[in-house]
């Protein structure tokens, strides 16, 4: 057998109830490969509540707490306190929530968990709308996208607001580790999961989860579309370790965003000027990322620079 580039262990079982070509299913499979069996998941209301447990079975080879929609962050603080009380030192405590349960409904619990500096990993798998209930817009739905609650008929423009910057919100809490992950880049994905697993303190993983029925594309294109999301700069891959940002995939020049947008039915109505507006925003965000990376690097190279406050606190 050729050498495997990602761990062989499988802790997500087939027979689960995800749609064909589901990006969130692949995200879970890859995540558990990196975390291993000593993991406790807390899953609030989201697609994965339904995917995981066609009664009386479970598709997950790890313990799962079925938590309330708004409570993922609080529940993992509690799970960690419980694990500590029992003297369990080698378990990963992981919240696994969708974008609605993170950017909208569970935002305060996430903020609380980060502020308490709970030693746990919070994962947001981002399919950019409330897909489980039938494609309603969330705070993480991108500008201009069609959903059932942001129509595109009779002059309606799709979602009129911008996508909420969850990484920005999380980074303002100075987490021990935060990263963006994309299943289309499975090796980079696993490296980040393993890195997060081995760091102590509050950690946040933002995973892109392409959704064939919700984004309106052919299920065979999940990986190709995910790749385009990163290579156009729509979903850049980076990580922030103890306050220092590093972009983990650079391709020289970004592909035009139109390649990503025109491959999906939810953006079909966009006019050339709309696409140009998105292109301008993506370019600006990308430049900002590269600038921050350069600044963080030069600060790290300066010997007199004080260590970021969170680095010492995170060790607690």
């Amino acid at each position: 057998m050729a050498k495997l580039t990602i761990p062989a262990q499988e802790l997500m079982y087939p027979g689960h109830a995800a749609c064909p070509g589901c990006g969130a299913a692949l995200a879970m499979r890859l995540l558990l490969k990196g975390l291993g069996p000593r993991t406790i998941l807390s899953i609030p209301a989201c697609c994965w509540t339904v995917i995981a447990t066609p009664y009386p079975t479970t598709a997950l080879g790890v313990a799962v707490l079925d938590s309330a929609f708004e409570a993922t962050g609080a529940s993992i603080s509690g799970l960690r306190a419980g694990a500590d009380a029992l003297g369990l030192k080698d378990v990963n405590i992981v919240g696994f929530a969708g974008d609605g349960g993170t950017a909208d409904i569970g935002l305060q619990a996430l903020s609380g968990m980060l502020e308490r500096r709970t030693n746990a990993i919070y994962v947001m798998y981002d399919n950019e709308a409330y897909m489980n209930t039938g494609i309603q817009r969330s705070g993480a739905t991108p500008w201009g996208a069609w959903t059932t609650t942001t129509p595109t008929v009779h002059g309606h423009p799709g979602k009129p607001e911008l996508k909420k910057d969850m990484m920005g919100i999380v980074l303002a809490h100075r987490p021990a580790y935060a990263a963006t992950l994309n299943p289309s880049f499975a090796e980079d994905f696993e490296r980040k999961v393993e890195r997060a697993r081995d760091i102590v303190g509050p950690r946040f993983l933002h995973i892109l989860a392409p959704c064939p029925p919700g984004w309106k594309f052919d299920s065979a294109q999940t990986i190709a579309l995910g790749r385009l999301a990163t290579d156009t700069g729509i979903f850049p891959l980076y990580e922030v370790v103890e306050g220092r940002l590093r972009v983990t995939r650079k391709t020289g020049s970004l592909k035009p965003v139109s390649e990503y947008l025109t491959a999906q039915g939810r953006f079909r109505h966009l006019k050339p000027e709309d696409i140009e507006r998105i292109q301008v925003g993506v370019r600006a965000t990308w430049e900002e990322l590269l600038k921050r990376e350069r600044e963080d690097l030069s600060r790290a190279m300066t010997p007199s620079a004080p260590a970021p406050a969170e680095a010492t606190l995170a060790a607690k």
Partner: protein
Amino acid sequence: MIEIRFHGRGGQGAVIAAELLAQAAFLDGKMPQSFPFFGVERRGAPVTAYARIDDKPIGLRTSIVAPDVVVVLDPGLLATTRVTDGIKPGGLLLVNTHRGPESLAAPPGVRRAVVDATRIALSHGLGTTMMPIVNTAVLGALARATGAVSLEGLTRAVEQFVPARPQDNRFAARDGYLGVRIEAASEAASGAAAAAPAAPARPRVLPEGPVASLSSEAIDTAAWRTFTPVIHLDRCTKCNFCWKFCPDDAIEFDDVGFPKIRLDYCKGCGICAAECPPKTIEMVATEI
């Protein structure tokens, strides 16, 4: 009262079909009801929906276990789902297939009818080859085969309640009405229909309890599939991309490291075929 049970897949329009049928019956002056079976309505998953039609108000609110008519929107379901369970003697089985009625397995005394709704739907541009929207063509066939609703009522219901492309859907209903093939009652009564056995029930003893303790591998999702990946091993380089990107963990390796599809679980998404660098994987329409 006539009781009709629909079998389809998530995304195919079975629930809408039951609803449209009820609307059509209402426009005909009847007293209908319709409702879906609430299960996991994922794209591709088997879905059941019900409709009842009577001349007087219907008090019954239960799901239909002894239908007069069974409608199957996807012939792939015949191999995995016991669609004719409980069907009444003298009842009717209507299947969307390009084959003749004699190809269908049905209990003795059940009349068989077929309509090539996939071809009709695609000829009017409804849905895609992977997922044709066949419900209006099937309803046209049902109107003719059962007389449960009139073509006029159905046409008006399509015009009023189908949000997308009402005209193409109206034409599809008409073509289904004209294109349905029904076996004569005498042939059905002779028992010739029982030639082939119905799909066997998968023996499935699942423990019940407050904690889900069984792996989901006990559940087979092969019925979700409309296209099946076939790996041409002569060109396979064992790069493992198909395995790496499979969202269903439906690929394993044989003794010498070649990938193998776990056909009980593959949902036919096509990712492996799209991502295979030497393009050795082909998606083949599941032959019924």
